[in-house]
């Protein structure tokens, strides 16, 4: 699935298209107003839509590890292919290691929000990585991968700033949805935004919450039916494995191997000479 923004000039219209698209997709409420505002009740923390330059959403599951199975919703209007590759590289490196680690170790339990503004783009903000560094030596190997991830992240940020010269800050919200009945399966969703303004910490929090709701809705609405089928099939496969293990134990274990457990019987067979006892 893809959505392509036609014109870069009419930013308000673009965001309207985006929200309409999301509306048809995830049930996001569209107020029928072109001036879409991402806001909460907290006064003074409103972000006008014209400040949002770009928005990208990525969904993927841990069992869908092939690049062509990634569901990339690319709302980028230029350098689309290049951008997608960078984004996927970022996720590829982050998926199993860093994002999960950050989610796990984030002291504020603020599920994987990364924010970086142009002013400080030369410094890496890796608060959770620092936490890991001082945490334990056992995590050292993982840190190397995280470092690699940060490098990917930096590359992506640089690319965003290159694509959007007016961008002042880049924001990513990552969400992990563990599916309890399927312990090794997680759904991941990421939303990537670029803003024409600097964001303060309150605004980051607000955007984070809005994005979280959005991502959850997208994930559940689009991936759960597939997931249900997958789970049903996996359960069937597990049941077959259960049956085959039991049957092997019963058929060969109880009926064949059980007759070969005494030294006398083994000797009898070992001493067998061709043609002596043939029926």
């Amino acid at each position, binding site marked *: 699935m893809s959505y392509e923004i036609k014109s870069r000039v009419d930013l308000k219209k673009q965001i309207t298209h985006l929200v309409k698209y999301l509306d048809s997709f995830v049930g996001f409420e569209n107020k029928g107003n072109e001036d879409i505002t991402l806001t909460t009740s907290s006064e003074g923390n409103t972000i006008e839509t014209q400040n949002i330059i770009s928005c990208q959403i990525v969904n993927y599951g841990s069992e869908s590890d092939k690049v062509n199975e990634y569901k990339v919703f690319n709302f980028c209007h230029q350098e689309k292919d290049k951008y997608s590759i960078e984004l996927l590289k970022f996720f590829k490196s982050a998926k199993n290691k860093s994002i999960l680690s950050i989610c796990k170790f984030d002291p504020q339990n603020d599920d994987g929000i990364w924010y970086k503004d142009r002013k400080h783009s030369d410094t890496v903000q890796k608060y959770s990585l620092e936490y890991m560094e001082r945490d334990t030596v056992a995590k050292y190997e993982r840190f190397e991968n995280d470092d690699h991830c940060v490098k990917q992240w930096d590359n992506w940020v640089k690319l965003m700033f290159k694509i959007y010269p007016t961008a002042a800050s880049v924001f990513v919200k990552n969400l992990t949805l563990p599916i309890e009945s399927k312990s090794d399966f997680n759904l991941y969703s990421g939303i990537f935004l670029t803003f024409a303004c600097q964001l303060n910490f309150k605004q980051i929090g607000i955007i984070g919450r809005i994005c979280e709701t959005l991502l959850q809705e997208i994930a559940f609405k689009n991936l759960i039916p597939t997931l249900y089928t997958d789970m049903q*099939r996996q*359960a069937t496969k597990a049941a077959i*494995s259960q*049956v085959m293990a039991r*049957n092997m134990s019963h058929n060969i274990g109880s009926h064949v191997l059980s007759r070969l457990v005494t030294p006398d019987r083994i000797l009898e067979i070992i001493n067998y000479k061709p043609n002596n006892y043939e029926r």
Partner: protein
Amino acid sequence: MNGNIFKIYKSLNIPANNELDGVSLFSIFNSYQKSRMDFLADITFGEPTLENTRLFFSEIMADLDKNRILLEYISGTHDFEFQFVIRNVINCDDKCKKEPCSETCKKCIIMDTSNDIGVSIPNDVLGCHAFYLILENIIRNCAKHNSTFNKPLRLYIDFDECATEDEFYEVKIYDNIEKNNLSGLIISQNEKLNSNLLESGKLRSGAWGLIEMEASAAYLRKKPIELINDEEFKIDISNNQSYYPPKKNGEGNNQPNFLKAIGYHKHYGYRLFLLKPKELLIVISQDKIEDINSLKPENLARLRKQGIKLCIVNNENEENLNLNNVYAFPIMLFYGTKADYEKFVIPNITGLPNRQLVYFAGKKSFVKSRFAQKIEKTEIEFILKILAEDTPKKLINYIWKNWLLKQLAYLGLKISSGFWRSSFSKINIEPEYFSDQDFDESFIVDLSDHGISGCLKMLNLNSQENQNAINDDIFAALNGANSFNVNTGLRNQISYSEPYNSKDYFLLKKVLKNKAKEFPDTIEEHDFPALCRLIEGSVTTIYIIDERLQELAENTTYRPEQKAGNTSEGLQFTDLLFCTNVIIPLSGKESTKIRRQDNNSRKFNLNETSFNEIKDKTIIYLRSLVKTKSEKEYDKNKADFLLIHLGVLEKLITATKWPAGKDDIGVKKFIEEQILQNKNVETKIIIISGRGKPHNMPPGYLYLNFSIVSQYCIENRLKYFLNEVVYSSKKI
């Protein structure tokens, strides 16, 4: 079975197998168990991608028949005697087709290779176990549910064409017990097959044998086993004959059932579908499609039935070549543009056949390769001509002949006229297949009965004690010029030498014209690809880096049958394999008889817990085996196929503290950067493992299950089959 004396019960009428002694029976039983466990790991973790052709009677059933310990006890009942009868009714008339249990027609009863039927088996020996598992269940059920019958019970396995699907054989398995009121039993069994495995989220109770039989039937079709509960594969209970689910408003993508209980007159049985042999994949560019326009739909159907698939690249229809699919054909012909080859073949190289004949339209350059041989314009014209003539067998034979001669020419070898004319003078092939210009005296293939003494003489291991050995083996040797005058045991002078155990290999017995008189002494047309593969196997260099096989090969001895009093020590398998160009590095623990040179004389104990001490020399050794595409001269000491155990790679990764880790990408990077050194290589790397589908299998690499490799290196050691499986290996 009276509990006191172990008896042998033969399920097939194969005289050669009388000679199995008690120790051999145990080893066969353990090997069977090992393969069964690997099959269970495989069936529960993934879908098979590899496929190759096995003769049903001579290979699949004969192997089961050897497992006398299992056959003796599997029924779980005292004195339960049974015998398999295999019938191929494809070319018989209605009398045979409609009459179960008939054994009067000599044409359809399969008793040897003369009318044996080839089937395509997923994952080689593991797929065989899927079939064995179905038979074990049927034997047990027969013993459990039939109290009175004439001994021995006869179990019939009937092969027929599938009426609606070109790529399947319809296989019926039933017994000779006549039952009244079968319909109730059939409905009840089919209802069980149709019912869900899961009831309220839990495994249903009972009818578990049917579950594993149906799952095994799905495995034999290369379908995910979890599909056995899908609507697409449900059984139409109201129609005994129907292959498909009941039609619901004509919708859905219904496919033939995996397993169905059927009534065959008064006999109860099961019906499943086995894959037909895949023979040839033809890939054609869109702009060359007019060259095959003369093919009528009925020609195409006939080609499909004979295992020939046509794929058009750049085409939107279903015949399009899919980059993600695996095409389990033994050989491929590409006819089209270089751009299409680079766009559609190269990116999916491990999903396509490892043998490729390639013709680029126009004057595009073609880089010679061991695995992709260029064919000439006159040759492609000839191929198109045979294609239009609608003679699939002729086409397949021509392709194989072309491939073999190109392979040999690539290695600087030619077929000797002596070989062809003396040993195979009765080949019934049209003259254009073998013109005299193909022959040259510089190459000799000697396939005759030299026995072990001849074998040892060739290896310069001849001694007085070996003179007493009985010449009961066929000895096959492929030699370079003047190699009959060798004075040393070095491999450089003898390219290939291998004793074949003529007792076991029916196909080879036929191909090699064994002294056994009961088999035909002419090579029929359909054996020709097998003969080509036999010779191809002799020039394929395979290196195996696996600690289990290293240990097994060094601790297993080949001992031919000997006269009384002969004390010949025999030959270590590691030496024997070395003579067949299957090279396993020496551990240094055991002394060997064959002298090795250069890198092959280095010693690595792959069973070391840690590779800290040997990591550097192991990596250097692996690098030395890899042939790069830039090397012009063919070096037979380098690997055509390099098989590496995933566990060995993991040990190397740990020892070298490889920064990218041991996950799939880490392993892939390790291979590419440390072993292949980022070079464009000719050598095919195959990962071997017994873990089912390993979680860290490097993407895009070829894969083989350990059991399959072990089977043809140790238990049923034969280069012919090992060559077959390495060439059949695919990505997973």
